[in-house]
């Protein structure tokens, strides 16, 4: 609590001191913000907000949080915008009904401003909508009429055929009566009656059209309601109807009027239109007449369609322009709703503005007012403190955006805090590469990255799955390139070593091929080191794993400690920047000393072991070279003569102590463990006085712990009891009081401030004491947790970085299995079929396991190393994002 105020207060003064931040710094620390109040005249408010929206550098605070949506000032305009949007949606539906795509761009709304624009848009859209609705309604009507004509004509034609069929063989027709409930109790009456009397004309009939999908149910319903006393026949409507719906002509024969009514009822229920078909004599005439009517109806319908198409084409061109205008207007009124109208005719807003853009915004506001002859009425000025917590704003580009999102996912940086994304942009791909290191696989990833780069920016909302990766295109490319680099270091290409520079090892006894299985030892042919990466001979040696594990583990620890040390240094830089010298001396310094004394030293030991020429050292441990050794390291002649089977320490020409005396390479792991477990003695030292140095470093590191644990609490405690005046929290309290009273306050000296506040009532001070007591325990507990986390964290995080080795090992082993057990095995078989099958397996396994699964795994572990191991050292991550009022962002969101 006590800490929270102080750094931020300093931050502001610091910002003013440094002036406008340099261009470089815009990703290093977030952009400077100012909390400004904007006072505008109501007449120019719309224009002001529009130009600010175009600038997009102001985040408005809602000054009317207590008002609900409909109590706000500009709700009427919002509603008008909603109504316009409704009209636009309707038009869009109609337009897309014609398969037209609304063009991008377009002239947009009329070049008007404010309410005039809305009026004009409303008028225009109203007119178009009216026109469209009228045409559409007319189209519905015409379609119905046209369909009716077609149906009628079909009825005329089909009924003639059906009549003919029915008369041709009454008996046949009757026996094939469709009986959907086959085996129903009652026999259709038609059978006997019609067959006996043969008087077909006694039956009445009804002709109509019903939807094809309803056929079965229509038939069933007719059968049920007439109890089987009717005969139905169907024929398809062949001419396409205007709405393409499949329909059937039906003809129902029945006997009595009662059933006729039933049939009518069923037809009504199914929406089946019935048509009166004239007798055989009038049929021809009716057909002719309908044909003519049909042609007319068709023409009218086509004409209407043409008109609609023309209108929709016109609308399609302008739709997106209109949509843009309406969306902008809506955004403007939404922003205006956050303004407060304290004095009539004047609106006031508050919000965060990017410090660099302040003067530009002021110019815009003044210009907008000048346009309505109110030049003096506007004001954009910083609000007197204390300000609320400022938002964090980074300008990102195509390359940095993905990394920034990475970091923001964990937590948005605190205002003006060092942005971890800057480091992540380099270290993330590299740590990924260390785990994924393989030239072949890395190249595939890099090629994929290049493909994404070539496709360029895409909207993440698009359905194409590749487009959703477009955001990370630079990241993927970098990851691929880092993997290629590390692959070259490991000398791995699909688990096959590359002999790029010629191996410096040779198996002397075998001229034909390497036969490491026989236990032969390779010898070096040259003293020159292999120019880059690991000598390929290691990949075919029997101690391949031992060698690579040792190398990769060590590099993992080195990289890890480097990154963590970097993180701790960043904490120091942050503390200095925010002026928190307490944290710098009592937290950062012990931390960095602890880190360097224990873990930095570990790195030094690793390099020391690498740098020593162990061949030479081990020679010194043999009696053969004892003479030379005496020459190089002259010491007491009276020492024991060298005995070949004596203790190594005695044989050794060096005298570093321990069991080896310095003539044998130490087991680094044991040595490191023994620093802590067995202080003061080194089994196999590498240099003179190693034990003393180590003891010193250990004591130094352990001394740091109590400083870290008790330093800040002690500071808080002493500051409170010695200086008597309550510190930070209470001072802050009073300061707030001042600010409210209108006095300006600088927190240079807390004590002076308190006295300036005049005599405070005694009980208040007492309360503050209590609060201080409370905050002291809080600080103590907090610090204890921090200390434990840091000390234990350093150990466990270092171990955690070993995942760099573990995943790299897993990757190379998997790749090796796929290579050796499928492809190499097949190549040795020398059979085309086997190679074909084995290659398929190899390719599939490589893709699925290594290029898909392992890639994701390495990605996640690299992410974790950044989020947990790196960022925990310095990153506060309690900021919030700057969300400016900007048209561009609003448009992108749509």
């Amino acid at each position, binding site marked *: 609590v006590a800490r929270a105020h102080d750094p931020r207060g300093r931050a502001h003064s610091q910002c003013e001191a440094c002036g406008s931040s340099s261009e470089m710094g815009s990703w290093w620390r977030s952009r400077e913000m100012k909390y400004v109040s904007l006072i505008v005249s109501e007449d120019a408010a719309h224009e002001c907000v529009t130009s600010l929206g175009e600038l997009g550098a102001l985040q408005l605070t809602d000054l009317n949080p207590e008002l609900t*949506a409909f109590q706000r000032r500009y709700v009427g305009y919002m*509603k008008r915008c*909603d109504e316009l949007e409704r009209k636009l949606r309707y038009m869009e539906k109609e337009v897309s009904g014609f398969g037209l795509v609304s063009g991008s761009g377009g002239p947009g709304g009329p070049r008007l401003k404010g309410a005039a624009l809305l009026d004009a848009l409303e008028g225009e859209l109203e007119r178009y909508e009216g026109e469209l609705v009228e045409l559409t309604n007319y189209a519905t009507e015409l379609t119905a009429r046209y369909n009716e004509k077609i149906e009628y004509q079909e009825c005329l034609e089909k009924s003639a055929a059906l009549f003919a069929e029915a008369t041709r063989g009454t008996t046949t027709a009757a026996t094939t009566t469709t009986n959907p409930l086959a085996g129903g109790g009652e026999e259709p009456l038609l059978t006997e009656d019609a067959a006996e009397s043969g008087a077909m004309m006694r039956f009445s009939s009804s002709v109509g059209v019903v939807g094809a999908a309803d056929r079965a149910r229509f038939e069933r*319903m007719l059968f*049920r*309601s007439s109890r089987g006393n009717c005969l139905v026949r169907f024929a398809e409507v062949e001419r396409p109807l205007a709405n393409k719906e499949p329909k059937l002509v039906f003809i129902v024969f029945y006997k009595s009027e009662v059933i006729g009514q039933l049939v009518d009822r069923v037809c009504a*229920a199914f*929406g089946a239109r019935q048509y009166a078909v004239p007798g055989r004599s009038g049929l021809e005439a009716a057909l002719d007449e309908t044909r003519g009517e049909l042609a007319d109806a068709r023409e009218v319908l086509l004409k209407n369609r043409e008109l609609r198409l023309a209108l929709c084409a016109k609308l399609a061109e302008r739709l997106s322009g209109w949509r843009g205008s309406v969306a902008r207007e809506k955004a403007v009124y939404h922003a205006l709703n956050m303004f407060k109208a304290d004095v009539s005719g004047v609106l006031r807003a508050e919000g965060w503005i990017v410090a660099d853009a302040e003067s530009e915004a002021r110019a815009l506001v003044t210009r907008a007012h000048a346009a309505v002859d109110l030049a003096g009425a506007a004001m954009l000025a910083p609000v007197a403190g204390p300000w609320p917590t400022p938002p964090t704003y980074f300008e990102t580009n195509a390359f940095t955006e993905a990394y920034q999102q990475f970091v923001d996912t964990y937590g948005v940086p605190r205002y003006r805090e060092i942005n971890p994304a800057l480091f992540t942009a380099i270290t993330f791909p590299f740590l990924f590469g260390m785990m994924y290191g393989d030239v072949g696989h890395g190249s595939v990833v890099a090629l994929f990255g290049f493909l994404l780069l070539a496709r360029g920016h895409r909207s993440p909302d698009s359905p194409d799955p590749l487009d959703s990766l477009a955001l990370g295109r630079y990241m993927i490319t970098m990851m691929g390139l880092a993997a290629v680099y590390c692959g070259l270091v490991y000398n791995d290409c699909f688990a096959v070593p590359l002999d790029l520079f010629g191996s410096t090892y040779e198996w002397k006894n075998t001229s034909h091929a390497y036969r490491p299985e026989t236990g032969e030892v390779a010898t070096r042919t040259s003293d020159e080191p292999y120019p880059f990466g690991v000598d390929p001979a290691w990949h075919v040696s029997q101690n391949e794993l031992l060698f690579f594990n040792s190398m990769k583990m060590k590099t993992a620890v080195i990289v890890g400690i480097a990154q963590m040390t970097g993180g701790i240094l960043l904490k120091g830089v942050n503390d200095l920047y925010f002026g928190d010298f307490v944290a710098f001396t009592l937290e950062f310094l012990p931390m960095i000393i602890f880190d360097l004394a224990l873990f930095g030293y570990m790195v030094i030991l690793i390099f020391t072991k690498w740098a020593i020429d162990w061949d030479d050292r081990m020679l010194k441990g043999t009696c053969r070279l004892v003479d030379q050794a005496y020459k190089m390291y002259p010491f007491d002649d009276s020492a024991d003569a060298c005995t070949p089977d004596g203790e190594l320490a005695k044989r050794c020409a060096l005298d570093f102590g321990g069991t080896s005396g310095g003539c044998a390479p130490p087991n680094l792991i044991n040595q490191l463990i023994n620093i802590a477990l067995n202080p003061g003695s080194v089994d196999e030292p590498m240099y003179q006085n190693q034990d003393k140095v180590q003891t010193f470093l250990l004591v130094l590191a352990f001394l740091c712990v109590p400083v870290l644990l008790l330093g800040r609490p002690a500071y808080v405690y002493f500051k409170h009891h010695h200086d008597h005046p309550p510190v930070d929290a209470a001072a802050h309290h009073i300061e707030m009081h001042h600010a409210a009273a209108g006095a300006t306050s600088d927190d240079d000296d807390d004590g002076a401030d308190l006295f300036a506040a005049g005599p405070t009532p005694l009980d208040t001070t007492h309360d503050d004491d209590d609060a201080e007591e409370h905050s002291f325990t809080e600080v103590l507990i907090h610090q204890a947790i921090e200390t434990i986390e840091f000390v234990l964290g350093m150990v466990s995080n270092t171990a955690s970085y070993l995942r760099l080795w573990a995943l790299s090992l897993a990757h190379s082993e998997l790749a090796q299995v796929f290579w050796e057990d499928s492809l190499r095995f097949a190549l040795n078989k020398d059979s085309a079929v086997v190679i074909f099958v084995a290659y398929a397996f190899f390719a599939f396994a490589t893709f699925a396991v290594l290029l898909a699964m392992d890639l994701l795994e390495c990605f996640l572990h690299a992410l974790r190393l950044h989020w947990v191991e790196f960022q925990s050292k310095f990153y506060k991550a309690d900021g919030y994002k700057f969300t400016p009022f900007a048209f561009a962002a609003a448009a992108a969101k749509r």
Partner: protein
Amino acid sequence: MANLCVHNRDFGFTEALCRGFRTGFLTDADYHHLTQAETLEDVKSNLQETDYDQFLANESAVTPAVILECATRKMVDEFKFVRAQAAEPLATFLDYITYEYMIDNVMLLLKGTISGRDVNELIEQCHPLGMFRDSTMRSIPTFENSPKGYADLYQTVLVDTPVGPYFSQFLQESSESLSTAAEVRNVLEEVEMEIIKNSLIKLYLEDFYTFCASIGDDTAEIMGEILKARADQRAINITLNSFGTPLNEPTMRATDRKRLYPSIGFLYPAGTAELAAAADEQALGQAISPFPVYREIWAVHQNESIDDRSIDDAFYEREVQMLELAFEGQMHFAIYYAYVKLKEQEIRNLVWISECIVQQQKDEINKFVPCFSKAAPWRSN
């Protein structure tokens, strides 16, 4: 136990959906804002801030009827989405929920035709959860209003629908008693309709209850409670509404009226036996007084003139409480039922509020039963 093991595998998704929908209920603050509204446009913009969001965006004019229609449509869309994801036996359970609306729709159509209203208008009024095919809907009103007509209706149309069995059972039972009361029957056109409806709902409730019992576990228990409470509510309401109608005549009390009482519920059988004998309100109060819950509700009825709360309000409150409780448990189906019913209650509230605004009855506006309200009487103490 076995059901608990696999419940989430089978119904986890739908349950999550349903619990997600639960967060869409209007809060006390939302209701507060709504009751402050001056016009329906205000109601619309207030609802835009809630889960209802843009549900009125495409309507050019807002009326209580439009609000009812759109809100119902939203609820039905959500329900249908859950239904589309449901596996058995949840699918059947969800279908059972819709049967009630089907019965309502059939009765609405039948009643509407007696009063000679247009079919299209009636169909528009039907609840979308209980929709049949258009042709089925249209053929229902074409049958005459007589026992024979109903028999025809069942045989030609309703036999294909899920509510057919209830209708056939009803027809069977009424034909058994037809001989005794045939002459009285023809007189009661309007009452006849109510009898049909109540009989169908009774049969439906009993069937649903049996089905829930067959699912077992918590579903049987929680749904059992809810359905029993509904059955009791029906029994009490039927008795109360029968006073002053031919149904209350001594000859019909024990036969026709008693047959309308569902054979489930806390009142059944002892309570319903007494209800069957009740001839006036006093006797009715006497009959349900052994049940503390109903005694309280009855007290509300008796104080109606003072407190301005009807017995329906009391029943609604009790129902809302039970339905809300259903959300407290897990691994049962009652939440789907509760969701539909509570949403229905919420829509009723919305319509009530908008009607009050339209009719300028601001003092009546707070007389609704909010769902999941922090201020509900069963939460406040």
